[in-house]
């Protein structure tokens, strides 16, 4: 329960925000890391803005039209906008940005992929730009709303990747002072800012005079820095500490469920023990994921029931009752699947083979105590008769294993504001192979689902898309082709002096509306 | 035989009386009856003793080293402590400086320095005394200098510590001191490190550092063991001069000739107890205690040697060795045959040790050749302490040597004890490390080790320098006995001409690395041809070989070549 802001927003002051990850490259068009979005959002505006419900609002584009075939988007641009380096914002600038994203020389590893079948953009007049796709691509506007499509000053873009990696220049409410790797980034207010999107709480320049992100990778340190009052807010409060922070009268926790793929376990549908639907289902139903998640995360994260999070446009609430913990059912399923025998240690066997699940778990990159969770699941799985074995992997040989399908189970989460996240997870074309890293690590090869996903690309009607995505989610559950685990919730710890930190749909905090009360 | 011994002692006494100079102390006529009771020199003296101690007891976990010693040293007086090796002389001396060691328990009736009770001295008070009021020359001359610092620095240290001279004068003062103690080329030497110096040079540097502040009392523990007679004479002269100037001297020595030369009063120690105490005249002239008598009896004299030369065991041809432009050995050739002893004498720094090291193959000669069967050769080092692995107990030291000699494992302990007995030690030392032994005890362990593998050749570098005369006699007898029995050959390096004369068939006289004379021992000792040899013989304290200087009284009986007398140790 967030308290009512004390009084009206105060202008000025500064805010220091402790973050847990940092980008190696600041250019959101190029960088492979989603945290680049957090770092550049204060500086970069997008053409459109996305709200929590999935609706699109004008921002740097004042209006737009989509051709009936869904191939052409025509944007009317806002006037009077200029970049913080003085360059005027116009259609040519937008074109430069869009082309920059897809230019192979940019080596874009995130944005370009979200651009889908982009063909070209054309400057119609200084205030009008036309974007053309080779095929219909409905998630475009949602993608366009992200910081990865933030519009940068063409002058800065012209400086080349090296300069961009250290500094980006946009039209946003803040301007970068300095980015110091491993330490953080500082911004100052853009006094001329006057083009906030309608979904923001105010217009005009930001309230904060100064904004600073400090990179504090270590959880305990970040938390300590907050509790000792050295900084004003932190990202990623460890779930175990949530109660402690809430109990502190000076602090508060701001929560925001992340959209996109939940933290799920992906059984290998293509080879190994999990090719059998019954075995997959037995694994999912035989383990009390809900309780485990609740206990290990102290209620901070909700258990997941679908492949995507409730915060995603297109989430199907019906999935929540579609399956539940059912040990007897699971045992029955295993019996039916011929894994009826048990060995001395209680593991199920078939033809003398133990029901073994090989899981390349990457401890080094695991966040949010996922390692602890995995160990708990391992213990629970044992009760259900599964022998989970963690395969020794280093970050380097994880990739080849994943690409080659050399695993029985793999885990990851994938944040994205749009239901199109399902296409990443389930499209047949996204099954990885040694030359291509796709996210269909479940290797779920279902043409029907593939069809629904393609259909969804063709319609920009939200309701229609939602219906298609619901079918996908339900089928994934019915087929037990994935195991939903928990919904990642952004846990932002902040001093009560800090007001109005908001979130963009991707669940990154934004600071345009934020202000510090002089308590 | 006893008569012989007493005769010799009387000779010494004669010199003693004769030497007495006016004004240098009137205590020659101190009453005899003070002997063997607590000395109370102060009773009949006006001056306060520089140091005085009564009923001193010092014990270590393994031994009661000192048991009720009392002594006093007055200004201008020289008190000498003689006695059996391991009898507690060094420990007594160290205690006078408050440095008996961490493991030591010390009790004393009274310990006073300059009349001030020292038993309650703080560490700071002790420090102001050490080096400034009391100078101390340690017995272990060869290892008593910091191996990582130039000796000049070591000498300067005393001056710096007590601010005895302004900073800028110190270097000059150091050179003066080194000159005073007879170090040639002091500028060069001051910059050298201990390992670059000969034993005698190290000892002189040590003396220089002890006398640097002109202390009121100088404790000198075996200060001349590594010195050749010429330098020794120079040092003794220096000490005598200082004594005359009022400095007190506590001299510890087994060299009765040295003692006789300097001491006004002599304490004889045995097993931690003072067995005899009196003026030099009394103790040397009319010893009462049997141990004192045996000591005096055991002074070595020239031996009658009748050995049969065997095969050549060492043949050295034209050896040359240069260190940084200093030629330490310059064209030395010699031959040693089985069953014989070649004595090597020569002033300190003349290249004796270097020659030995060349023979042993520890140094490679710049020129020249050595033929020797090294497997059959053993060494007794001039510096026994550093020749022992610091972690090894005496037991392991001997065990290893016996192993090399092929003694079966189960016999080794028995043999070790035998060897120790032969050198006059009991098995109590077996489990001690050499660091915790007295100087003489260490030297004897070194001898025992060299004997253990039953070698055919032994290179002895000052093998008996730290031994009291009675033990020395025992060891020398042991060596000659082995020679007669087994035909062992010795390359025998010593400053002690009496000893060399006693054991050698042939003698090689070195000077500045060159052999100035060599030949039959008797021949050389009685009729030296080379002026240097003559000079050497002349400088022997007590004047045994005094020929060149007619002003010194020749000792009757010099020509009496008698077999060594076995001490009646009881």
């Amino acid at each position, binding site marked *: 329960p967030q308290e009512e802001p004390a009084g009206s927003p105060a202008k000025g002051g500064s805010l220091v925000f402790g973050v847990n990850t940092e980008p190696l490259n600041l250019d959101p068009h190029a960088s492979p890391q989603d945290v680049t979005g957090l770092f550049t959002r204060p500086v970069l505006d997008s053409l459109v803005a996305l709200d929590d419900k999935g609706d699109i609002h004008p921002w740097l584009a004042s209006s737009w039209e989509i051709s009936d075939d869904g191939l052409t988007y025509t944007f009317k641009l806002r006037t009077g906008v200029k970049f913080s380096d003085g360059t005027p914002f116009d259609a040519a600038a937008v074109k430069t940005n869009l082309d920059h994203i897809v230019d192979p020389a940019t080596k874009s590893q995130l944005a370009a992929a979200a651009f889908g079948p982009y063909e070209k953009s054309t400057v119609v007049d200084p205030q009008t730009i036309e974007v053309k796709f080779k095929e219909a691509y409905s998630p475009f506007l949602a993608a366009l709303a992200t910081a990865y499509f933030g519009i940068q000053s063409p002058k800065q873009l012209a400086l080349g990747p090296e300069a961009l990696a250290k500094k980006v220049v946009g039209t946003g409410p803040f301007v970068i002072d300095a980015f110091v790797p491993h330490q953080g980034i500082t911004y100052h207010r853009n006094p001329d800012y006057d083009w906030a999107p309608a979904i923001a709480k105010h217009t005009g320049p930001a309230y904060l005079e100064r904004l600073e992100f400090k990179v504090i990778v270590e959880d305990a340190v970040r938390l300590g820095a907050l509790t000792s009052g050295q900084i004003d807010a932190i990202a990623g409060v460890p779930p175990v500490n949530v109660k402690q922070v809430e109990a502190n009268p000076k602090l508060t926790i701001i929560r925001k469920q992340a959209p996109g793929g939940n933290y799920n376990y992906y059984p290998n549908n293509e080879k190994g023990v999990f090719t059998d639907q019954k075995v997959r289902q037995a694994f999912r139903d035989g383990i009390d994921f809900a*309780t485990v998640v609740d206990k290990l995360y102290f209620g901070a994260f909700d258990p997941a029931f679908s492949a995507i999070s409730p915060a995603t446009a297109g989430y199907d609430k019906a999935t929540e009752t579609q399956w539940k913990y059912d040990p007897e059912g699971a045992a029955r399923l295993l019996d039916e699947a011929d894994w009826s025998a048990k060995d001395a240690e209680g593991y199920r066997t078939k033809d003398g083979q133990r029901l073994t699940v090989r899981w390349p*778990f990457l401890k080094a990159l695991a966040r949010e105590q996922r390692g602890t969770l995995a160990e708990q699941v391992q213990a629970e799985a044992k009760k259900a008769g599964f022998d989970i074995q963690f*395969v020794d992997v280093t970050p380097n040989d994880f990739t080849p294993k994943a690409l080659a399908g050399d695993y029985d189970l793999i885990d990851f989460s994938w944040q994205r504001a749009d239901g199109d996240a399902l296409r990443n997870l389930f499209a047949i074309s996204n099954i990885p192979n040694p030359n291509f890293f796709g996210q269909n690590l479940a290797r779920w090869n279902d043409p029907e689902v593939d069809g629904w996903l393609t259909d969804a690309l063709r319609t920009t009607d939200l309701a229609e898309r939602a219906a298609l995505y619901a079918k996908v989610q339900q089928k994934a559950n019915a087929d037990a082709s994935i195991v939903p685990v928990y919904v990642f919730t952004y846990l932002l710890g902040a001093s009560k002096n800090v007001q109005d930190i908001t979130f963009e749909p991707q669940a990154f905090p934004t600071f345009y509306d934020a202000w510090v009360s002089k308590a | 035989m006893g008569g012989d011994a007493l005769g010799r002692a009387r000779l010494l006494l004669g010199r003693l009386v004769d030497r007495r100079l006016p004004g240098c102390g009137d205590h020659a006529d101190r009453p005899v009856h003070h002997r063997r009771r607590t000395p109370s020199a102060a009773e009949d003296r006006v001056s306060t003793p520089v140091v005085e101690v009564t009923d001193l007891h010092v014990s270590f976990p393994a031994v009661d080293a000192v048991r009720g010693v009392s002594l006093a040293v007055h200004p201008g007086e020289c008190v000498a402590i003689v006695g059996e090796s391991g009898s507690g002389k060094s420990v007594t001396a160290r205690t006078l400086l408050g440095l008996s060691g961490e493991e030591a328990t010390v009790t004393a009736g009274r310990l006073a320095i300059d009349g001030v009770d020292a038993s309650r001295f703080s560490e700071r008070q002790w420090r102001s005394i050490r080096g400034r009021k009391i100078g101390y020359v340690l017995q272990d001359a060869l290892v008593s200098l910091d191996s990582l610092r130039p000796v000049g620095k070591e000498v300067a240290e005393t001056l710096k510590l007590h601010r005895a001279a302004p900073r800028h004068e110190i270097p000059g003062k150091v050179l003066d001191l080194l000159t005073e103690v007879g170090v040639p080329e002091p500028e060069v030497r001051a910059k050298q490190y201990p390992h670059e110096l000969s034993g005698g040079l190290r000892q002189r540097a040590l003396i220089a550092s002890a006398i640097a502040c002109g202390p009121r009392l100088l404790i000198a523990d075996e200060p001349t063991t590594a010195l050749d007679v010429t330098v020794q004479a120079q040092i003794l002269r220096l000490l005598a001069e200082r004594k005359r100037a009022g400095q007190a001297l506590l001299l510890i020595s087994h060299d009765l000739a040295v003692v006789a030369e300097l001491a006004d009063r002599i304490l004889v120690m045995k097993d931690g107890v003072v067995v005899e105490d009196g003026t030099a005249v009394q103790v040397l002239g009319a010893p009462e205690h049997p141990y004192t008598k045996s000591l005096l009896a055991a002074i070595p004299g020239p031996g009658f040697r009748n050995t049969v030369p065997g095969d050549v065991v060492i043949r050295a041809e034209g050896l040359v060795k240069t260190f940084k432009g200093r030629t330490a050995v310059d064209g030395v050739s010699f031959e040693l045959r089985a069953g014989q002893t070649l004595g090597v004498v020569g002033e300190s720094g003349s290249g004796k040790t270097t020659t030995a090291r060349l023979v042993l193959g520890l140094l490679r000669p710049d020129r020249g050749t050595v033929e020797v069967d090294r497997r059959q050769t053993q060494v007794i080092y001039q510096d026994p302490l550093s020749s022992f692995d*610091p972690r090894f107990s005496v037991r392991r030291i001997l065990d290893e040597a016996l192993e090399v000699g092929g003694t079966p494992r189960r016999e080794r302990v028995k043999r070790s004890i035998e060897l120790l007995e032969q050198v006059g030690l009991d098995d109590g030392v077996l489990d001690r490390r050499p660091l915790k032994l007295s100087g003489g005890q260490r030297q004897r362990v070194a001898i025992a080790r060299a004997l253990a593998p039953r070698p055919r050749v032994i290179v002895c570098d000052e093998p008996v320098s730290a031994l009291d005369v009675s033990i020395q006699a025992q060891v020398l007898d042991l060596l000659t006995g082995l020679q007669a029995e087994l035909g062992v050959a010795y390359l025998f390096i010593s400053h002690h001409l009496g000893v060399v004369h006693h054991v050698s068939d042939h003698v090689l006289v070195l000077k500045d690395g060159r052999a100035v004379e060599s030949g039959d021992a008797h021949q050389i000792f009685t009729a030296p041809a080379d002026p240097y040899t003559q000079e050497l013989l002349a400088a022997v304290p007590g004047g045994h070989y005094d020929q060149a200087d007619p002003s010194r009284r020749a000792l009757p009986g010099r020509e009496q070549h008698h077999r060594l007398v076995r001490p009646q140790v009881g």
Partner: protein
Amino acid sequence: MRIFAVAFLALITLAAIAPGLLTGSTPDAADALAALQGPSADHLLGTDANGRDVFTRIVYGAAPSLLAGLGATALAVVVGTALGLLAALGGRVVDEIVMRLVEIVLSLPTLLLALLVITVTGPGTVNVIFAIALYTAPSYARLVRAQTMVIRKAGFVEAAVSLGLSRGRIVTRHVLPNAFEPLVVLATIEVGTALVAAASLSYLGLGPQPPAPEWGAMLSAGRDYFSVAWWIAVFPGVAITLTVLSITVVGRRLQRRIA
């Protein structure tokens, strides 16, 4: 002090050989409902985030931990000593070669070196030991070399030569034991470091994998819960410290004995 050290070593040796004797439960009995309980009669040293008994895990962790700590150190000491002696006694050319090789190894980042070893040998506890040993051996080599250079000039080594001892004997009996003093100090300390290093490698997916209990891994896992459940990290930490302490006490004693 010595008695405690010996007793503790005996205890952990027992734990390593027969953990079942010291505890009734199993190290991987996870129970989400019993997570993060403080020390109590039921759970002597509390439970971890998975509700596993910390005491039991420490007991079962003794074997892999000791293996990593002692194994890596022993291997490094042996290899390092051999190289150091070779360099010090083998002449100028050998010295140059060995020491330059050592420098190459030292120049590689730990992580890279570990990855390299694991790539060549495959992952697993034993190979992690190799990796750590490979990284620490050069330091022993340099230390032994330096010590040997000084000691071989010592009088007692000369004396041993002229006593007629063989080269090998002199090295093993006189040079090494005297050179060993600082080495032993370093090695006893390194046991603890190696243990923790093994844990950080396992964190990278290179060592024993969960749920295998391993002290170093427990120690680092505990840091996420430190503010609410100190016992998860502190007790394994105490186990490591006590082990290092005991080994030092006993080791020094043994060394003095032998010397």
